[in-house]
């Protein structure tokens, strides 16, 4: 009796310690980036292009570039990934071939991002001749996040109780009607969770856009999907490794990091908003 109470207390203490440690690091990161980033962030920083060899002005082109790249990646990967997930969970029997497919997709998720970068260079930039462009970068990032979107969607789809499907079929709905009108809406919150995670990943990756989309400095803003762009993560990398005024550049890099964080939060907030709205419709 006494012993079990004691061990429960110890267990609880250890768990709390883990949580506190995690929160501590999270807090430190946020604090560090926010404090350092806020020093340089201003209206000008958000809306102007860089000047004087990246030491003055703003980072607007990089913000816009990252926004386009991320948006493009999602627009490409979400429909494709969702279609794959639907096919794999709803239309294929659970046999060896499908299992191998599943394992391959999961393996794809573990491939280092720089490999995707090389792949994008070979396929989109060179073979399809899209050049170093938003299009090539978006497609490369899209392929990078595809496995995540597929497995999140698969999980969300399989979580829908069988009884919903049976009820729908028993009313004379076809399989496709059942998927489109019952299964998909009900699994949307789960799918959006996958999308949110992917947004963070796509926005933050440097290696995949290194050879496919990004440039350290470009005059003006992108005017088509075939434009080369600046992007926040690559800009940070550039500021920290090139140039002649490391002190000023480091400050700007922290500003970029803060903006990147906020941008991911903003895009995620939109996805979370839709997710909550969907949940309310269904369960509220």
């Amino acid at each position, binding site marked *: 009796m006494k012993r079990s109470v004691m061990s429960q207390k110890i267990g609880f203490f250890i768990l709390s310690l883990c949580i506190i440690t995690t929160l501590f690091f999270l807090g430190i990161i946020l604090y560090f980036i926010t404090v350092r980033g806020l020093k340089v962030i201003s209206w000008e920083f958000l809306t102007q292009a860089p000047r004087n060899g990246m030491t003055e002005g703003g980072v607007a082109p990089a913000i816009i570039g990252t926004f386009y790249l991320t948006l493009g990646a999602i627009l490409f990967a979400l429909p494709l990934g969702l279609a794959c997930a639907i096919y794999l969970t709803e239309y294929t029997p659970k046999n060896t071939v499908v299992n191998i497919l599943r394992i391959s997709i999961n393996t794809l998720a573990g491939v280092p991002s720089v490999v995707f970068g090389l792949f994008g260079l070979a396929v989109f930039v060179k073979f399809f001749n899209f050049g170093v462009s938003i299009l090539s970068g978006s497609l490369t990032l899209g392929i990078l996040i595809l496995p995540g979107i597929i497995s999140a969607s698969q999980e969300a789809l399989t979580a829908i109780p069988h009884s*919903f499907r049976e*009820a*729908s079929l*028993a*009313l004379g*709905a076809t399989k496709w009607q059942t998927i489109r*009108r019952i299964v998909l809406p009900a699994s949307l919150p789960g799918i959006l969770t996958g999308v949110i995670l992917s947004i963070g990943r796509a926005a933050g990756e440097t290696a995949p856009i290194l050879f496919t989309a990004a440039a350290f400095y470009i005059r003006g803003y992108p005017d088509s999907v075939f434009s080369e762009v600046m992007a926040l993560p690559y800009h940070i990398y550039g500021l920290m490794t090139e140039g002649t005024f490391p002190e000023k550049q480091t400050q700007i890099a922290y500003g970029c990091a803060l903006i990147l964080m906020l941008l991911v939060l903003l895009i995620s907030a939109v996805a979370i908003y839709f997710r909550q709205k969907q949940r309310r419709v269904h369960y509220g």
Partner: protein
Amino acid sequence: MDKHEVQIRVSNLNFFYGKTCALKNINMDIYKKKITAIIGPSGCGKSTLIRLFNRMNDLVLNSRVEGHIYIDGEDILSAKTDVVELRRKVGMVFQKPNPFPKSIYRNISYGLEVNNVKNKKYIEEKVIDSLKNSALWEEVKDRLNESALMLSGGQQQRLCIARCLAVEPEVILFDEPCASLDPISTRKIEELITELKKQYTIVIVTHNMQQAARVSDYTAFLYLGELVEYGTTEKLFTVPENPKTEEYLSGKFG
């Protein structure tokens, strides 16, 4: 027994899950606008049997069926059967209430929408009608746009019945519709089923012998995949022919 019109005729029916035989040589006639109860101990094949009537077992991998089931004279087990069409005609209410995670209104309109009914006015009338016929209207008329998942278990089950009525089936299959409900909800559903008999042919699977005795006109006793006895409820419950039936009814096993 022969004076009624036959709605479903089961003939030499065998059913297999993989290699195990779940139904053995079933022969029975189910009559129009009567309530037929199927009773028997757990695992005897009751669900398997009624899920064949709307081809729900098509979803089970590695299953195999032999024999014939005629509904209004048509062999519904034939490969030519339009399963979607069949399921409109033969509705089903499941053991656990399973409303869609949608509003009460949309739960019922769904069946019409997937069957290509476009007329909003007609859909609305049908929703109200179905709710009235399932004795749920008074309880939900002010909150048709609320989620169906907010309803109680018994209300959810009546909603499932309403959903089924909306597509105007001829036959309604109930698979232990009261298994997860309290006695009051159970009584409401039983009353409802008795009421529905005027318009529909009803087949109800139940574990509860009193329930079978209360609501049904005919009762079939299944045991280990075989139809042991089938006849009017009155006869089966008072003077069963087969000693096995008597044993089951008196609670010797089950």
